[in-house]
């Protein structure tokens, strides 16, 4: 992304920034692909793409929910905790079969989402604090329910994690379907329009008679449900429930994906395709650094720089 700026600086600066905000993330992904094809051995194998895609799928699913929340000018820090909660509840109720376990997971996630939404919509707490409380408490509950890692032996869960249709893993299919669904909701439904209107200006949305509180609660419940799906899928892939570390820093990855993808933190706009590309960009960046034996510390520093650069590029939009 940095190279792209340098090359095009002589052009009209405002137009470059505009272009960068909308297409910068795709340019970044393309650049990383080209670089990797040039310098990384065995990059162009189907196996590699499959691995990358399976790894990025849970991040994409969480980021979809995060994009909706950020679209309402909020943020949800509790997504990692919800993933951990999903993992421990899955382990507890798997004895009754996969479907009942999933239903209980959905109930738990919905309760967390309701609590977040109620704090934000009815009490009027800032989203960052409301979800912080649920983040701390949620992981606590997950650990109380299941104090340590537990191996799960369930054929249907295992096939969910590693099975495929026509060579495409279930994880990727599920992530794709959810991305299309969320994009449809944002673009084509009343709910999506109301969500963006609230993000633009909550007082204006209230004055216009929109059901602000209901929409906000639904957004946070949706975000928690998506995080729970990601938690179940990650658990299925690991074939073990790990409430201690599953979803740690996931809120960070998800926020990064959303922001890098061109959704402003100031709300009122949601870019779903960009969010998916943002998650892919971070995944490719990490994979590139790892494949060239650079230690994780460099990955973190690189990620930090990408976040700041992306927010810096998006900053003009907030002011206008």
């Amino acid at each position: 992304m940095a190279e792209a700026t340098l090359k095009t600086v002589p052009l009209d600066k405002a137009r470059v920034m505009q272009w960068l905000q909308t297409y910068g993330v795709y340019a970044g992904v393309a650049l990383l692909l080209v670089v990797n094809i040039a310098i990384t051995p065995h990059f162009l194998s189907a196996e590699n793409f499959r691995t990358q895609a399976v790894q990025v799928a849970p991040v994409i699913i969480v980021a979809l929910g995060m994009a909706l929340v950020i679209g309402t000018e909020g943020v949800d820090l509790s997504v990692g905790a919800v993933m951990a909660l999903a993992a421990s509840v899955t382990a507890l109720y798997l004895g009754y079969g996969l479907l009942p376990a999933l239903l209980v997971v959905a109930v738990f996630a919905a309760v967390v989402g309701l609590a977040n939404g109620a704090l934000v919509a009815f009490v009027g707490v800032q989203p960052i604090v409301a979800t912080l409380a649920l983040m701390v408490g949620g992981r606590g509950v997950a650990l109380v329910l299941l104090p340590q890692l537990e191996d799960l032996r369930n054929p249907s869960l295992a096939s969910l994690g590693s099975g495929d249709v026509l060579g495409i893993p279930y994880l990727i299919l599920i992530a794709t379907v959810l991305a299309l669904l969320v994009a449809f909701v944002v673009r084509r439904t009343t709910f999506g329009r109301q969500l963006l209107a609230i993000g633009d200006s909550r007082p204006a949305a209230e004055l216009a008679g929109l059901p602000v509180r209901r929409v906000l609660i639904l957004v946070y419940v949706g975000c928690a449900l998506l995080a729970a799906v990601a938690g179940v899928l990650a658990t299925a892939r690991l074939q073990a429930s790990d409430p201690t570390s599953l979803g740690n820093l996931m809120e960070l990855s998800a926020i990064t994906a959303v922001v890098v993808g061109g959704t402003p933190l100031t709300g009122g706009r949601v870019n779903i395709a960009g969010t998916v590309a943002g998650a892919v960009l971070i995944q490719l960046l990490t994979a590139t650094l790892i494949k060239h034996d650079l230690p994780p510390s460099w990955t973190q520093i690189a990620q930090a720089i990408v976040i700041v650069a992306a927010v810096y590029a998006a900053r003009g939009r907030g002011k206008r």
Partner: protein
Amino acid sequence: MTATKTDAPVAPAGDGKQAAATEPVGSARSERLSALVQQHGALAVLVVVSLVASFSFDSFATGDNVGNMATSSAFLAIVALGMTFVIITGGIDLSVGSLFALGGVLAAWGSRHGTLVALLLPLVVCGAIGVVNGLLVARSRLAPFIVTLAAMLGARGLMLALTDEGANTYLIGKGSFLAELGQGTTLGLGNPVWITLALFVAGAVVLRRTRFGQHVYAVGGNEDAAALMGAPVARTKILVYTLSGVLAGLAGALNAAWLASGVTILGNGMELDAIAAVVIGGTLLTGGLGYVSGSLVGVLLLRVIQNVINQVGSLDSSYQQVVSGAFLALVVIAQTWLGRRRQLL
């Protein structure tokens, strides 16, 4: 004259709202009560919890236990002090946990090159990261939480790079001045406790009695108004993030001195504890209102609750998180409610 005339129609409207909300006579008293609960609610809860705990558990109110709690609270308290300044300006600093870990590692690493290096290095490096945070927030006008989130990642990356990906733990030699600073006691209390108390007194004086302190409140209260009145908004913001970074680094260095090593896995989630302590202590997250003393009470309250949960024994330590989360939610609800009341009155 024109000012009073334009004000005139507004005042009765405000009175009308008051009358609808409460009895007209009790409104002033009720406002004072709200302010009192907001400022000292945490202290009251701390006293009650401590009293109940000392009656319920024989081992709670012993000198050893209290001393341990005080020392182990000291490090979080120093971090929370910096966070208080940041939050009063209406910002937030999520990088403190990483800076805490980085400060500890730098102190332990630097202790091989003498005490001065060991003490200054964490302060300078963490302070520099704080300056970058402040510049990005104040000059580039980026959202504080995303800037400091990136700094959290970057600082942890730096810390891992210094320690061969966390495989290398630097030790602090016994008998050095640094070790004495962390582990020694003065008048029966650990040195970190005294340092913390001194820092809080200094912090309270700076916030209440200096021009910089007034600017901190002004920026948090209303940034545009502060700028129009000529307060140096950008400089104030850069200074508070720098202060937060320096204090987090200092806390990390002291903690490393206490443990005699730069432990790399520390500080995860510390930013959340610090924010929780500040909020519990009555500082408004919207900025403009806050108390340094409240943050100290908030830290102590979190520590006492943790201690009580440990004393119960049958409760797993995960309950600590559940209780902290629930408590934070309760406090925020109460604060928002009190804040709204005060606005209405």
